[in-house]
């Protein structure tokens, strides 16, 4: 069972978030939380992390329900677009959500592709962190260049 304290953010996940922020221009922040609204790791400025984690989990949870009732599931992303920028929220496995913040001149398409690739990386990393078994189920990256 995942149950991290906010004070000990897993370094591996922080590193992945940092890499994500460097991979796309105009990204201003990233956050990983559980589907029930508890923050795990983040690279965000001037934010109440616990509050925004809860809001993101609500939005993703409702997004999943909407996608299911409209037959477009599994849900992949929920986007909030404001005059000041974007907050894109992604489903990561069964138990986590990834949020990426960007300025309004960022490219939504590149954010989408990159964030969803990183969501897979995070899923695999979380499996690594949580398993004590030798063998791991690894999700394939559909965008991987072979």
């Amino acid at each position, binding site marked *: 069972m995942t149950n991290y304290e906010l004070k000990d953010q897993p370094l591996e996940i922080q590193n992945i978030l940092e890499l994500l922020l460097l991979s796309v221009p105009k990204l201003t922040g990233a956050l990983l939380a559980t589907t029930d*609204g*508890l923050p795990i790791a983040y690279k965000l400025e001037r934010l109440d992390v616990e509050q925004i984690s809860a809001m993101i989990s609500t939005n993703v949870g409702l997004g999943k*329900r909407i996608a299911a009732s409209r037959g477009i599931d599994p849900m992949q992303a929920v986007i909030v677009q404001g005059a000041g920028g974007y907050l894109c929220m992604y489903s990561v496995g069964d138990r986590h959500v990834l949020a990426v913040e960007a300025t309004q001149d960022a490219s939504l398409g590149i954010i989408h592709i990159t964030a969803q690739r990183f969501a897979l990386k995070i899923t695999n990393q979380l499996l690594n962190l949580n398993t004590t078994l030798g063998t791991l189920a690894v999700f394939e990256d559909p965008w991987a260049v072979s």
Partner: protein
Amino acid sequence: MKPLKLLISGPVGAGKTTFIQSLSEIPVVETDELASENIGKTYTTVAMDFGMLELDGIRIQLWGTPGQNRYKFMWDILAEGALGLILLVSGEQPQDFIVARSMLEYITSQHPIPYLLGVTRQDQPDVWTPEDVADFFGLPPEHVIGINATRATSSIQTLIALLEQIQNQKWRGIP
């Protein structure tokens, strides 16, 4: 006639989702996610539960909130336009009474609507009775009602008790 919007709130594990499921005549819109804290159950509501029913010709919408304090913003969003509040608390979890009390105060101060405190798990032995809970909360006894989810009529009785509070008269259905 516009449907009557009722808010269902209360601490984690009070039985909000179960209460709505027991009353709704449509499949309940649920937003359950795996709980990563030890809260005595596997899933927890993260956005809302939504159910509907018709009682004596009145269409009633039930909007359930998440229980955790970090979802406080949802209490306000869902309370918008609500005409009554049922706050549920488990009679087996007296450690939640303080939280329930502050939820009740928070919601009724932001949205002054008629309310009822439902004490669930009345089928269990050694459970707090509605009278005890009314004493503890310092509420008039008519605002506190016992709920036994294993009895089909229990949830309906709770609903009728709240409708009587809203109308300030004995329930007679639609004249």
